[in-house]
């Protein structure tokens, strides 16, 4: 029996998978200590499934503790040791300003202030030590005097020559027992000092908080008789909670990774391994690409303007959701967002004091949502409030209210299409060969329109649309990534050198996972010498250089339209993943009979039309023909005219255009 628990902004979702079936439950998220909400959701799902805690084999957890701490600045008192002359490495960043024309817009402040940055007397160059490390003792004393709760160590060229970082790490551990020390070559391992330093700072500054949270959660789990949690990392794989506590930077984007993993699982189960996933909630929209059943990854990302130089699932977030507010700008254009009514007060139609027209208000006025059909969490909708607020904006824009409502939806869709273009066409991917997998409370309402805009003719909507992240956690693999910049070219780029580096990294990854037999995958980040961007090429653990070149050139040709056979090839970074497969779950949707059907009027492309409405999840085999609205337990699917399909055996609604 597999348990997955995902902490969201409003609700904590639990999914229990047993005998190929799933039970779900929600509990309010408890921001002061997420573990309370987690245990409440666990108790609720066990009760609903009628199972005992002792029967749970694995417990997987996706959390937002690290993300929230970073966004809210709720961080430990950290110190930074850097090579002397370079202690401002994070403050300087890449020297670009935050906004081109708002000249005083500030970049996020470094996590370590001036007074806790210390210079180490040493220098290492790309080819080795230039000046040995001296003055360790007084340095460590000065660091200790600053009373840090954690220390980050970032020395130049340590990705290749880590001796001085290791030496400082040992000295700090002796002098400051119990204080977390993050060494940049261990945390990140790749070249480019700013990104490595900023990530190492994040790792250090999060560590006390994350450690105490995970300890508390493990204790509560123990008391409840369920296994210790495995934690979702930003890379979409699980790691045991002790390892997660030691390496906070691994789980910074734990939350979105769970959703992406769930989407990939559903896409595979539905027989559509190539899918664009689109998760739209109240305030934001997460998109990602699933290729051959796996979520696309990226070698680095960022959070709130801070770089994170670690491999992670490529989830792109934009601030467009059901709560996004429509407005008229001074040039007379209709705009939607980035301001959002959020969950509180929420859209005007929530009747909690919201007064501005939101996307959800528009969907209600257009008849896609209904006042007599509450949303997830039991929110019922006030049509009059939606009408009033949209009338106001329509008057400003000199539009009919229904045209204005359709406009709000179209402009919001355009924003989400742009997000999907960022993860596809801007990376050289043709979206038309993918299915669109829509989930989250609001995703399935917008799926068909967005698919049409991108030229996609197939959409999917999973039955567990509202708790997909928790499901994803339950079925995820365990995984550990280790990476290092090796910068090999010319004669130094040979099979022996590659194999040796991969073996060493594989050993470290398996050790971190506690699985000496874990499966090993390797990714080689390659470029032509002189380029500053690399292309990731997946290959076995000991590829011949000719093989790497051939595959790199094919990828370069595909991505950029040319290859350059005269240029030298450079292997910049090797990334090794150790994985152990997740629970083997086969979904089969229960047949609870046909949901009740009713009809209502809606507006689509300026025309009134009668819609058939299914109130509940239709069982496998049900034929779906638009125009139709399907009110799933936690989300609503709009099927416009011209779209039709059926419910598959896993309960996923699959639709095609035309």
């Amino acid at each position, binding site marked *: 029996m597999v348990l997955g628990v995902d902490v969201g902004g409003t609700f904590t979702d639990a999914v229990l998978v047993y005998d190929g079936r799933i039970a779900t439950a929600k509990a309010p998220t408890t921001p002061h200590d997420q573990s309370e909400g987690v245990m409440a959701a666990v108790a609720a799902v066990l009760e609903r499934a009628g199972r005992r805690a002792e029967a749970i084999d694995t417990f997987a957890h996706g959390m937002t503790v690290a993300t929230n701490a970073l966004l809210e600045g709720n961080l430990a008192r950290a110190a930074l040791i850097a090579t002397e*002359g*370079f202690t*401002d*490495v994070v403050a*300087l*960043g*890449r*020297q*670009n*300003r*935050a906004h*081109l*024309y*708002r*000249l*005083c*817009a*500030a970049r996020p402040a470094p996590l370590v202030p001036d007074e806790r940055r210390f210079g180490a007397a040493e220098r290492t*160059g*790309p080819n080795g030590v*230039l000046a040995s490390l001296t003055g360790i003792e007084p340095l460590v004393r000065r660091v200790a005097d600053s009373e840090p709760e954690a220390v980050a160590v970032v020395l*130049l*060229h340590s*990705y290749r020559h880590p001796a001085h970082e290791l030496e400082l790490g040992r000295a700090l551990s002796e002098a400051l027992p119990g204080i977390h020390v993050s060494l940049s070559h261990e945390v990140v391992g790749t*070249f*480019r*000092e*700013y990104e490595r330093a900023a990530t190492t700072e994040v790792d250090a500054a999060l560590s006390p908080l994350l450690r105490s949270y995970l300890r508390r959660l493990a204790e509560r789990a123990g008391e409840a008789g369920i296994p210790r949690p495995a934690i979702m990392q930003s890379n979409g794989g699980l790691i045991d909670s002790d390892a997660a506590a030691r390496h906070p930077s691994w789980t910074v984007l734990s939350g979105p990774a769970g959703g992406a993993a769930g989407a990939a699982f559903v896409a595979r189960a539905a027989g559509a391994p190539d899918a664009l996933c689109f998760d739209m909630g109240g305030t934001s929209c997460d998109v990602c690409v699933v290729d051959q059943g796996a979520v696309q990854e990226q070698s680095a990302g960022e959070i709130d303007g801070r770089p994170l130089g670690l491999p992670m699932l490529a989830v792109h977030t934009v601030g467009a959701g059901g709560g996004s507010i429509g407005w*008229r*700008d*001074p*040039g*007379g*254009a*209709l*705009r939607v967002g980035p301001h959002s009514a959020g969950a509180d007060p929420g859209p005007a139609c929530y009747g909690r004091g919201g007064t501005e027209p939101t996307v959800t208000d528009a969907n209600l006025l257009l008849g896609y949502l209904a006042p007599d059909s509450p949303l997830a969490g039991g929110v019922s909708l006030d049509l009059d409030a939606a009408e009033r607020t949209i009338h106001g904006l329509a008057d400003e824009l000199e*539009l009919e209210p229904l*045209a204005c409502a*359709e*406009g709000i939806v*179209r*402009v919001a869709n*355009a924003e989400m299409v*742009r997000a999907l*273009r960022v993860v596809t*066409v*801007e990376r050289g991917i043709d979206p038309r060969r993918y299915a669109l997998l829509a989930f989250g409370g609001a995703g399935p309402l917008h799926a068909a329109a967005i698919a049409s805009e991108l030229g996609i003719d197939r959409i999917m909507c999973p039955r567990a649309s509202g708790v997909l992240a928790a499901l994803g956690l339950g079925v995820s693999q365990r995984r550990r990534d280790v990476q290092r910049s090796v*910068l090999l070219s010319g004669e130094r780029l040979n099979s022996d050198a590659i194999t040796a580096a991969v073996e060493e990294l594989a050993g470290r990854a398996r050790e971190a996972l506690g699985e000496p037999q874990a499966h090993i995958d390797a990714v080689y980040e390659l470029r*032509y010498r*002189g*380029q*500053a*961007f690399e292309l990731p090429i997946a290959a076995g653990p000991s590829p011949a250089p000719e093989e790497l070149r051939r595959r790199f050139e094919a990828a370069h040709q595909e*991505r*950029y*339209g*040319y290859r*350059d056979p*005269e*240029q030298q090839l450079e292997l910049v970074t090797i990334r090794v993943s150790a994985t152990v497969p997740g629970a083997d779950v086969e979904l089969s949707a229960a047949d609870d009979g046909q949901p009740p059907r009713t009809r209502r009027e809606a507006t689509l492309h300026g025309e009134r039309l009668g819609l058939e409405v299914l109130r509940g999840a239709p069982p496998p085999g049900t034929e779906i023909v638009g125009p139709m609205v399907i009110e799933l337990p936690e989300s609503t699917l709009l099927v416009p005219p011209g779209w039709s399909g059926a419910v598959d055996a896993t309960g996923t609604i699959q639709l095609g255009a035309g």
Partner: protein
Amino acid sequence: MIDPIDLQVLTGALRAICEEMGAVLIRSAHSANIKERRDASTALFDARGQMVMQAEHIPVHLGAMPAAVEAILAEDHAPGRSWVLNDPFRGGTHLPDITVITPIFTGGDLLAFAANRAHHADVGGPTPGSMPADSRTLADEGVVISPRVLDERAIAGLSEQMRQLQQRRADLRAQLAANRAAALRVEELVGRAGRGTVEQAFDEVLDYAERRTRACLLELEDGARCGRDLLEAREGDLEIVLRATVAGDRLTLDFTGTASQHEGNLNCPLAVTRSACYFAVRVLTDPDIPPSAGAYRPVEVIAPEGCLLNARPPAAVVGGNVETSSRVADVILSAFGRALGQGTMNNVVIGSEEVVYYETIGGGQGACPEAEGPSGVHVAMSNTLNTPVEALELEFPLRVIEYALRRGTGGAGRYRGGDGVVRELEATAPLSFSLLTERRRHAPPGAAGGEPGARGRNLLDGRELDPKASGALKPGQRLRIETPGGGGYGAP
């Protein structure tokens, strides 16, 4: 007539096309200038040569792209026939900025142009990097490309006249690929929305940007404001004079009285002066306005021919683009009561016949009426990324000795100006260097009682150099650049 909804949707689509062009260009180019520093811009123009939309990577290209399209507008256009140019007096800015323009046809008729501009690491000037500190005519600065067709033969021919020909070739091909991507997307847009709607959208976006700029200008107080500032030429200071007049929803920027063009390279073609003016207008209005030619219709720029800001051939211009442009923006911002930032890009070129390292260095931003000025950033016409120390040391025979904030250099005030930066480099092989810097003699002023930031300094083994300097570096010699702080705002 397009409704407010279509307007917003199509504006987004056009912006997405420009952004995708930028993504293709930056990812597929070879030189660090384009890839790491993102010294490149992309834009879409209508068939009449009006700039409809631009992806904003670097402000100095903002208003200078239209001149490039204008320069080839009357040529004989055919599908797939692209154009290339860098001549500052025929559509360019300075020689390292090479512009590639591709007409976009649908159904046999010209609909639009895709254009992009990228700063090449070399264009065959006498010094590596083609950013000479002491050029006196355009011919001293590299290969001048008058507008001509860009095909494989032209790519080969042009690259051969420049250093690192493989890189030049790859960069030019990347520029072509970016325009091809844009053409494809515009064709798709026409397929979805229809040619008529797309043409209408072009007009509407221009008008919309114009309306919004006018609305912002209306909020500024009517009347004339004056400003003056100095540029630090080898032969002495050169004065820039401005009279800025707001009259209702219009703005006139009149530089009459500015010094004549000079024998050095601080001269600007008018296109560069316009760019700097549009940058300042964007800062003073609403940056949310789409960057299209419409936004600049209510702005008139006057610079008498033959003056520093509207130079005639064969003036040298390499410093005009990178340095004078910053001062033009400064003089406008100060006329409107702003404290000034470092006011220079601190151009550093170090190289040999084999390698060229070009970098601009951030400094202090001027404080704003309600915020401190950020430290260690690019402040005006540039916003390029630095070259990481580790990347630099891997590729060039250089060692970085120090890279740090230059503490205490921001001007005091109710809000402090930002601090400058120290970047010190040591040669590990014989190299030449060339520095094009400003605000070494005159510090960036504060405003409303705020104090000025500290002036910058250039040091060779501890000996102070001129703002514009060049020479040789022996192994072990150190070049130290200390960039200026920003001015403070309000009495301390």
